[in-house]
């Protein structure tokens, strides 16, 4: 095991605020006549050089967020509002959602590249992998000849630990792990600043998962891109991510440094999520799991969507919708945010309810 195996402390050397991607109030509906609101006013900031983990149960909107931010949402998905601001190396900001087709095509892969969930199906079965990497390069750098693009592709394969001889292989000649490496190599072809990885290791066995995750961390160190890492595997995130955002029912419910989320979860859902898998090291703790199942997005209850499954719910939770706000636990990192009424007594009082004290479980120092 490498140094990665040991959970890392948050990077001290990280510059305080240098956002490369800012998602502001992004909303997405599925369907046109009676739309289901699958993303509701999601805001998220990715800083330069950072690995941001996005976790949550299936169907909570993680992948939708990735697709919407890159405008790859298939119909009937519809972005109904918000902004996705990308800051280039020169400091110029542009709203991805407002780009015209031509600029969007130019921006894709160059600014933000994506590694998709299905490593098995992400490669075109009828083209050699070298050609598939090269066509991304030539599409953006037309001056580069086919030969040069293929040489670059060979270097990229080498970068992810695949023998460049494999350039002339077809996807079906590669194993699942190799295909995912090829996808990572392809994603790095144009030296993007942001890499979105949508469950890149889900279809792989644990050994391969580990290798891929280490590879990503290693490449990030060397190349300095930022990563949005989407997964439902929180234990994996804790090892790779600097910051973690937890999603529930199309909203972000908690966002904090990885170690803070791991050791000191403040939202009841994040707490439940962390108690649903055994920690690899450290003291044993009781496994709980979260009772119930995620809500039907078409029929969300009023107030907090997590209320029906929450052990700490009280009368205010069914009446008003919680908002992301700083944690109410004294001594917490002021930048961490939680969407829970237990942390916003002022809001609860303003709505005419009696605020509740934070339960001991959610106040671990």
């Amino acid at each position, binding site marked *: 095991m490498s140094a990665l195996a040991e959970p890392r402390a948050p990077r001290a050397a990280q510059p305080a605020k240098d956002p490369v991607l800012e998602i502001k109030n992004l909303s997405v509906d599925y369907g046109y006549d009676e739309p289901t609101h699958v993303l509701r006013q999601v805001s998220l900031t990715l800083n330069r050089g950072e690995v941001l983990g996005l976790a949550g149960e299936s169907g909570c909107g993680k992948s939708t967020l990735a697709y919407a931010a*890159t405008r*790859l949402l*298939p*119909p009937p998905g519809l972005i109904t509002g918000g902004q996705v601001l990308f800051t280039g190396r020169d400091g110029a900001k542009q709203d991805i959602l407002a780009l015209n087709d031509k600029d*969007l*095509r*130019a*921006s*894709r*892969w*160059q600014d933000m*590249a*994506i590694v*998709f*969930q*299905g490593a098995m*199906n*992400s*490669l*075109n*079965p*009828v*083209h050699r992998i070298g050609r598939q990497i090269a*066509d*991304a390069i030539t*599409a*953006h750098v037309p001056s580069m000849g086919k030969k040069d693009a293929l040489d670059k592709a060979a270097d990229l394969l080498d970068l992810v630990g695949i023998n460049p001889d494999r350039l002339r292989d*077809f996807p*079906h000649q590669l194993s699942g792990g190799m295909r995912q490496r090829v*996808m990572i190599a*392809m994603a790095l072809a144009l030296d993007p600043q942001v890499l979105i990885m949508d469950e890149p290791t889900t279809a792989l066995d644990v050994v391969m998962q580990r290798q891929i995750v280490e590879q990503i961390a290693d490449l990030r160190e060397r190349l300095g891109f930022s990563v949005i890492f989407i997964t439902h595997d929180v234990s994996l995130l804790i090892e790779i991510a600097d910051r973690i955002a937890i999603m529930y029912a199309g909203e972000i419910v908690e966002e904090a440094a990885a170690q803070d989320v791991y050791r000191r979860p403040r939202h009841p859902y994040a707490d439940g999520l962390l108690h649903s898998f055994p920690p690899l090291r450290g003291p044993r703790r009781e496994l709980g799991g979260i009772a119930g199942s995620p809500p039907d997005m078409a029929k969300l209850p009023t107030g907090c969507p997590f209320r029906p499954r929450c052990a700490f719910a009280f009368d205010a939770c069914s009446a008003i919708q919680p908002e992301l706000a700083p944690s109410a636990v004294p001594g917490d990192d002021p930048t961490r945010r939680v969407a829970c009424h237990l942390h916003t007594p002022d809001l609860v009082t303003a709505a005419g309810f009696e605020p509740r004290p934070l339960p001991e479980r959610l106040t671990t120092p």
Partner: protein
Amino acid sequence: MRFFLRRGIFYLITFWAAMTINFFIPRIMPGDPVSAMLARNQGKISPDAIEALKALFGLDENMSLWQQYTTYWSLLLHGNLGMSFTNREPVVDILARSLPWTIGLVGIATIISFTVGTLAGTAIGWRRGTRADILLPISTFFSSVPYFWLALIIISIFSVNLGWFPSNGSYDRSMVPNWSWEFVGSVIYYGTLPALTIIITSISGWILGMRNMMVTVSSDDYVTVAQAKGLSERKVMFGYASRNAILPQLSSFALSLGFIVGGTLVMETVFSYQGIGYHLLTATSNKDYPLMQGCFLVITVAVLLANICADFAYGVLDPRTRQEG
């Protein structure tokens, strides 16, 4: 390369099997062709001719089945398919005369239909959910109209009422067939209506098949990846989506190529087009066994050849098929 060799051997064996069945079919039919012919000609055939005919059919009782079989093959490989009863000329000559017409007309019509249909299907599938979808029910309607009936309607509209095109034949009978522009023009002129019938009835299959495959393939991950890579719309559509969607189309195309020779019987009859189908029909109604056998041979070989082409094209286009045998 081993893939192509293996397929080649496979087709050789298939050809042998088809030809052997072709040899046995006349021999297991009730009665024998010679007595059938005698009955039809009511004793107008001399006894000498009977012997000659029997020898011609390989019905010589002095020969063992094995001898007959080897003779059959040697004749076949020498391109000797016997004499037609009704036309009193070698079957090979009849086939050589009619085959180019059928292949020319139906082949070109099928290729046009496939190309246009596949392109239309690509476009409709790519822009699914738009107004282009209206082409689907229209083309499906035309394809469900019976073939011969549509042919008659087309004749009545374009030939009888409007008088734009001739109603039958394959070229102006006052001309002598040669390679002049005038003659070729006449062939195209006479071939328009039959070709139109074939295209109208077959195109919806291509449109529908391609459109559905495009819809399926468009939602595949690699197409999304191609979009995410920022490739041009054209490149995603042709290099990624339709490049994969066309694979199943290809097998259907090969099958339809095989049926070109045999499947146009009705069309050639309605339009009195002197192709293979026309001869097959007359041969069948006149119990002209050598000609029938010759037609079947051509059909079998055509199906095999078309399949070989499709197989090899598939091997070239889809690397996955080259793997296992």
